[in-house]
């Protein structure tokens, strides 16, 4: 059986919420405002099954922060917002006196920072739980058409499985939701499953 069971996903969901809590604390410190972050749902599929409905971000332009994690297993991790939401978040984080035009020039770097905080927090919480070590590339930010993005995942040869996490982010009473996407190869997925099993046996 080459997939994660509900039990595996429950364990991951719990640990990602811990990560989200840490990320929220870091973000709150940066913006000097209470930031809330949670991971209400998690879903596991084959990459080939990904489509706009599964992704359920109904906007054509997506802002994507990407990091490649490696170590005990490898995973391509991405944080997705609709481009509109990404700009709203940035505006809230930088204070509302800044115009949308001015924002655009800061968007790239600031989104990298935001994505970096959230991705690192989730992945390091997972690494802590599974007692493994992970390394990561630096984050990159791209704005991409959602069809192209989905096509790039379906057409990717190395990665077979996808984990989709819904995330709710609340800054200054504004709520936006995004997605955390993890792509795994079959062998990385097997390793991950084995590690979660080991962890589950210990508790």
């Amino acid at each position: 059986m080459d997939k994660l069971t509900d039990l595996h996903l429950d364990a991951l969901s719990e640990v990602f919420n811990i990560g989200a809590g840490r990320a929220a604390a870091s973000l709150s410190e940066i913006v000097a405002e209470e930031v809330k972050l949670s991971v209400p749902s998690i879903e596991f599929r084959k990459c080939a099954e990904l489509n706009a409905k599964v992704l359920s971000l109904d906007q054509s332009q997506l802002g994507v922060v990407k990091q490649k994690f490696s170590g005990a297993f490898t995973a391509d991790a991405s944080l997705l917002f609709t481009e509109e939401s990404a700009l709203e978040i940035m505006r809230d984080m930088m204070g509302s006196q800044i115009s949308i035009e001015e924002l655009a020039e800061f968007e790239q770097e600031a989104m990298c920072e935001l994505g970096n905080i959230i991705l690192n927090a989730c992945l390091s919480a997972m690494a802590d739980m599974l007692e493994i070590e992970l390394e990561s590339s630096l984050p990159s930010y791209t704005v991409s058409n959602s069809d192209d993005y989905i096509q790039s995942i379906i057409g990717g040869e190395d990665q077979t499985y996808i984990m989709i996490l819904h995330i709710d982010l609340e800054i200054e009473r504004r709520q936006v939701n995004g997605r955390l996407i993890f792509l795994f190869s079959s062998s990385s997925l097997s390793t991950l499953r084995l590690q979660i099993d080991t962890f589950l046996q210990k508790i």
Partner: protein
Amino acid sequence: MMPHSVAPQGYDWAQLFNALNTGIILVDSKGHVLLWNDWMSRHSGVNSEQILNHHLSDAFSETLPKSFIAAINRALSTRLPVVLSNALHKFPLPLFSTAGSGERISQSIVLSPLKQAQGELICLIQVTDSSTSIKREKMLRDHSELHKKDASTDPLTGLYNRRFFDAQYAIQMMQAQQQHTTLSLIMLDVDYFKNYNDHYGHIAGDSAIIAVANCIRSKLQRSSDLAARYGGEEFVIMLPNSTPAVAQSIAENIRKAVTDLKIAHINSMIASHITVSLGVSSCLPGVKVDTVTFLKNTDLALYAAKQKGRNQVQYLPL
């Protein structure tokens, strides 16, 4: 422990770090400085002898921001790289330009945890001066503003062009219908303008168009009112939140202002000087109508003004 793949053994690494045009700091897991390159010395005023083996926070006379310290701790505890964007942390470290002004440098910072052979973690801090890229982006933005303005303006009169009007009209129409307010339109045509051009020439024709445009501009007081050159001698004016009575009185004021210019027009069939005809229409709250029909109705009002002898304002209800 220098990797052979990067440079041969015996290579002078200090020389390389000092030649870099970017700030490089290495700190150990307790925050003690292991490396401080020349760029850092130049911009902080603290040289490496003063700071090596001391805590990073002792290098600067001011307290380092909490978020910066937290980021280093995060990089070391998660063993993952951390970025500090210029957008969210303008000047995390007290670093100053070496050029005359001595202003504080805007920075972008990357923190990379490095695992040493003995297993302990150190943190590489790369500081980039982002002021040049910020200046460049500001310049690009100014240029694009200029282009945007060019793309929306009629070069002869300085009023908006038809393209800009069409876009704004659609937006205002939607808003008026959502918020149940009245949107009024005025269309204006210079009377016997072809005759004027034929007699006085195109340069004089252009001057007359500019003069009419200035009359329109002078009679619009609210920033939400929008006037555009719609065709050769045709103008359109959009008045959000204006009743039919207000719109008609603005149209009448424009008509009078043009007449008062007393620009000689011997080939006009109705006067000795330049005059204009104006059609007014209003979309009242609750009236469901599309943009094309509303504009067409205003054009019909203008047609009525011409039919009734020109140099006048006609209102046509929807």
